[in-house]
């Protein structure tokens, strides 16, 4: 591949003046920097983010019972690095929307989401937070929480089993593993 590019550079205009070696180095500088610095840094940063996903303690509806089960010793999502951060919103990476979000709660949810530092992720848990669920034609229930915050993973169910929520955490970790540093 290098030989081909040398050939191309030689045949291109202005290639003879700079010499082949410098042209190759300058032309491939972006790839070299990418492979030498950015990729390891991305891997490291993503590795750190994957195993310290701290959800906000925000319980809007009854799906929080299932989340309690997930946090408890039987399903124990802490072994994947998911541990509820009770201290401050500034320590949180993840907001799990537990079920129904009313129109009165929607500005509060956005307010909480805006206070979290980047990068931040959102999981919509339960039928109510995806489409409104059984309250889809109610006067005060939001038909889908993705009108307010960007959602990464949807977890259907009413309520979802704890295994499904753990599966959503693993999906989110896969998504973070593939993301690029900005």
């Amino acid at each position, binding site marked *: 591949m290098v030989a081909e590019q040398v050939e191309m550079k030689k045949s291109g205009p202005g290639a003879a003046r700079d010499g082949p070696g410098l042209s190759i180095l300058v032309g491939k500088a972006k790839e070299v920097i990418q492979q030498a610095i950015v990729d390891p840094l991305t891997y490291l940063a993503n590795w750190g983010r994957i195993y310290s996903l701290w959800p906000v303690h925000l319980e809007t509806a009854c799906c929080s019972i299932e989340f309690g089960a997930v946090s408890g010793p039987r399903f124990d999502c802490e072994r994947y690095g998911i541990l509820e951060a009770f201290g401050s919103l500034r320590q949180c990476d993840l907001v799990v929307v537990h079920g129904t979000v*009313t*129109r*009165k709660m929607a500005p509060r949810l956005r307010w909480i989401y805006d206070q979290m530092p980047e990068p931040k992720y959102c999981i919509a848990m339960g039928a109510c937070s995806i489409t409104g669920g059984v309250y889809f*034609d*109610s*006067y*005060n229930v939001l*038909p889908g929480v993705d009108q307010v915050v960007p959602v990464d993973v949807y977890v259907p169910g009413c309520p979802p089993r704890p295994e499904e929520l753990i599966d959503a955490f693993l999906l989110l970790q896969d998504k973070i593993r593939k993301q690029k540093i900005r």
Partner: protein
Amino acid sequence: MSAPPAKTELRQEEKAILEALSSKLGSRITVAYSKPNRIKIIVSPIDLIEVATCARDDLHFDQCANVTGTDFPKDKQIEVTYHLGSIEGAGLRRIILAIACRVPSATPELPSLIEVYPSVNYHEREQAEMLGLVFKGHPNLSRFLLPEDWNDIPPMLKAYRLPGRLEGE
């Protein structure tokens, strides 16, 4: 296992309540129905406070458990029902006395019962917000349960339509 027989006969306590109501208030009340453990009477808004005071002092219904409201668009009326219960009264523990009061939808004003039963404070606030009622004498009828930026007719009225949904209906 056979179902227990339906209790339709009034007990002694319900009969006593009906007699006391008719003797004390006479023609100002209308008994909508009287079933075991539940009696519903209809009064006009003018007599509401007097009937409630009578129910509290003479009939020993010492608490107001709930206040409900219903919209009747065909009659152009809104019905407000006070569900009274009793804790102290002898033999009244299971009985609920419902005092219903109908007001026209155009001017939905009725006196507040907060002087008689202080516990109706939040219930009346909720009904005022959900049905657009005005309880005269209530100390605080400000925004309670709906979102702060609510800009529509009260949602429990039958004329309310969800914006953006169910257009054909």
